[in-house]
Structure formats: C-alpha cells, structure tokens
C-alpha cells in the first residue's frame, strides 16, 4: 500500500512534527516499507487471522479501577525547576503575526 506525501503531511500535523521537502521525500519512501511490514499482520496464520481464537476477547477492562482519591502532589517550584527563567509564568517569544 503506497503512502502519499499528502498522507505523510497529515500524519505529521497530527503528531506535531514537521519535515523539510528532502525529509518528506525520504520519509515517504521509508514509511512505505514500514507500512508494508505492519501489513504482514494480515498474512495468514494457521486457521487465518479472521478466525483467531481471541476475536471478541476483551481489549481493555475498565472494571477494576481504584478509587479516585486526591493525594499529595510534588511542590510546584520543584516540578517547574526545569523551566528556563520561570517566575510564576511561562515566558515565550511574542507571536509574529
């Protein structure tokens, strides 16, 4: 299955990534091979993937959730100690419109 450059651009937007034209070119070719590899899950196993025993098996169980209790958090100043120049606010450059 061939992946187009447009699809790569759409995925990049979803993943909050950007690629130069050269990267996009290379990436589209590599991604084609990667998707072909992912597609091999559709190859047959004994009995065929359509008949695998676990069809309909639980995917994720939401039955065993712990009670939602408020617990002590780490202090803000420690958590934000990696922010450069933090003074109670996040500083970013003024947007250039």
């Amino acid at each position, binding site marked *: 299955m061939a992946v187009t450059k447009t699809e*790569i651009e759409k*995925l*990049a937007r*979803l*993943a*909050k*990534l*950007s*690629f130069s034209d050269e990267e996009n070119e290379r*990436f589209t070719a*590599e*991604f084609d*091979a*990667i*998707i*072909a*590899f*992912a*597609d*091999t*899950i*559709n*190859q047959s*196993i*004994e009995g065929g*993937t359509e008949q*695998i*025993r*676990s*069809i309909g*098996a639980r*995917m994720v169980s939401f039955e065993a959730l*712990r009670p939602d209790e408020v617990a002590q958090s*780490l202090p803000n100043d*420690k*958590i*934000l*100690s*990696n*922010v*450069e120049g933090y003074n109670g606010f*996040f500083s*970013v*450059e003024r*947007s*250039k*419109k």
Partner: protein
Amino acid sequence: MRTGIFEFASKLRKREISAVELTKEYIGAIEEKNPTLNAYVHLTFDTALQAAEQADRMLKEGDAPVLCGIPMALKDNICTDGLPTTCCSKILDGFRPYYDAIVWEKLKAHGAVLLGKTNMDEFAMGSTSETSCYGAPLNPINTAYVTGGSSGGSASVVCADLAVYSLGSDTGGSIRLPASFCGVVGLKPTYGAVSRYGLIAYGSSLDQIGPLTSSVKDAAIVFDAIKGGDKRDQTSVDFDYGVLTQALDRDVKGVRIGVAEEFFDGINPEIKSKIEEAITLFEKNGAIIESFRLPALKLSLPVYYIIACAEASSNLGRYDGIRYGNRASSYTSIEDMIVKNRSEGFGDEVKRRIMLGTYVLSSGYYDAYYKKACLIREEINQEFDTVFDKCDVLIAPTAPNTAFPLNYKGASPVEMYLSDICTVSINIAGIPAISVPCGEDAKGLPIGMQIMGKKFDEAKVLQMAYFYEQTAGRKAGVNEGGARV
C-alpha cells in the same frame, strides 16, 4: 574469575577495601576507558563519593544490605532526582528530574553507589544504541562493533567492568539483546514484577526494568533488590519470590525444557548450533526436552511494532519543550513553537515510530492495525500459556545474529527491526526471560542464549541460567568481565 557482588560485599565487610576506595577504583577505570567506549553519558562522581562515604558508615554500623557500597550504573531513562536524565535525546537536553524512580529509591536505600547514567538508543528506540544523540557506545569485546540496544551503555559498562552491575529497560529485547552482543547476563523480569514509576515510558504495556550483570547470581541479587509492587505503578504487583539466590543451586533433573522451531527460523547457523549444544547439555543432565509449535510467533514482530509505536506516539506527546528540554530559537506561534521543539528535538528513528504509531491509531486504520495487533497479542499469550502448561522453560537464541559492525549501512529501518525477532514475543506475553552468554562465533563475538519462563517464575529461569553458566558457560568462552578493549 571476575569479582561478583557477594565477593565485593564480603571484602567490604572484612574491611579489605572501603566503599570509597572501591568507588575510586571504578572512577579511575571509567576515566581511562569511557572516552573510548562512550558507555556513560552522564558521570555522577561527586554524588557517588558521597554515597560511598554514607555506605561506609552503614557498613560500619553493621547489618548493611548486600548491595551497600557496590558501584553501579543506571540507564539514562531511569529518573534520578537532581541528576541528568535525558533518554539520550536532544529534546530532554539538560533535564533533571525532580523525583527518583522506584528502582533507584530502593537501590539508594540499599546503599548503592551510582557512578553515572548509561548511553542508550534515543527513548530506547533501536537495536544498536546508535540512535543516541551522544553517538553510539562501543562494544568492549571489539570496539568496531555495536553493543546492541537499546540498553547498550548498560551492557558495555558491565562488560568492561566500569560498573559491578547496571539497570536497563526492556520493551522488545532492550536488556537481552545488548547482554547477548556484549557477553553479559541480562534479565527481563515478568511484566509487573518491578515498578515502572520513574522509568521514562516508551511502550507502557511492554516496558520492564531489569539488571545487567557479569553473572547469573548477581542478576538474582539485583532483581531481588528492585522487585515488588508499588502504588505509583498500578500494573506492579507484590509476588513472594522467597530467597532467589537459594533457588539457584537446584538440580535440572526432570525440568521440562520446551523448544519451539519458530524461534530457530532464519537464525545464523553458528548461533543455532551453540544453542542446540546447550540444550543437549541440559538433556544429558536429566532435563526433558520437548518440541512445541508457536504458529502465531511469526506475527510477533509486526504486532510488537504496531503496539509499541502506538503507545509511544501517545507517551511522547508530552514533549512540547515548554516545561523542560529543547526550545526552538524562533517561532511564529505557540503551535509553531511546539512543532519546532519536537521536530528539532527528536531524532529520525523516534519520528518514524511516532509517525507509525499515529498512523495505526488514526481514523480508518485503527481496526486494521492496532485492534488486530491487540487481538493477535491475545493469541500469542494463549499459545505461550498452552506451551507453559506442558513445560517449565523455553530455550531459544537471544538474537538471530551476533553484533553488527558500527555504522552498518546495509540495513533499512525494517531490516533493523528484524534483529528483535527472538525477543519481542516475550514482552508481548509479559513473561520473564534471561540472556546468558553461550560461547562466541568465529569472529570472537559473544552469542546469547535466551531462557524464558512462566509469569513470575524468575526462580526457574535463573536456576537454569545458573546451571548452564556453572556447568558449561565458562568453558564455552563466556565473558568474565574480560573485556578486550
């Protein structure tokens, strides 16, 4: 024979050496060899010496744990309060966590001495450790070859005796593959046996922390210290393992060893023959060998890459460069800033995996890829369960080949993924597995044998590995910390 944890612990207690002196010896060795090996990416000598002084005080007071005063290393994705933790990614450049991972909290309480953080594939995504933003660590056995990945630095420091032991993480083989390539022991515990709190996430349903050591007994000691449930990781559980080191000496007579042909498809003949020799050795000593089929195993690689990348695309969504890490120098909007921070901060392999994860989770493809992969995962689990009803352990190679040459250009990204063929199914099923050295190939590169067990049966896995190591391993040319760098 190389000094192990018990021997160092004994010397420390007899005052033949102090923890500070031992730490200084290791610091000297690191200063000499690390510039070549590039195995450590962050050195923590100041805090190591302080920890060693504290360990000496604990030893003087008596009743100190066995790991007290023993110098060790952590993979650079295990959080250490106030010390650099970067996952070897530019996007976490300069990041210092504000809490300790549970495993490090536990080891600190044992009096462990942390020498530094070890090199790895960026965000643990790779099989050679070459995707590290600090450049690849080198294999001490032969520096023209890779260490394997992603815990390559952790394997390299143990192999070159630049740490007595180290911790790595294993999502699809990242402890066992480098252990195999560097000729050391690597244990991937049962999913849930060790808390992941403070391990920077890659694939949360697959990740597990484990030890890399120079002997099986050391692996048992370190695993014993880090195991156990913790309320901050809801997937971790307390399991009563008893005293693991006491299980090592048990006889292998009557142990049922399973061999599945799917693990041997396409394996380098030299490796295949070494593993077969090892299986014969177990049989001669009374183990019962049985053949099994695991038909769904051939789908384990694409299943792994779909699930791991889907989870990674979600886990790595948090890196926006705002609260920590790489920040672009110019941008036109907040959105543009985040996109630039991520695009400049992540390397190619991480981007490839985020993109694949985004693709398989996106509308229109979810059922065809992610859902189907989850269903086949259940199938793989059931096949392992069926096999483990009839046998105690499975034996297979750890990798289809020995270490690759550095900068090997012959392989595409997909061909590189194939090096995980023997290891990923173990993470999919959540079972424990160890890689133990099993001789070397004609080029003198180490071969690893993988022993898998039932969930929470690390005792049997360690027992079988210990038997092999003691009976044949050393004769077969197992690395004894005799790094030839």
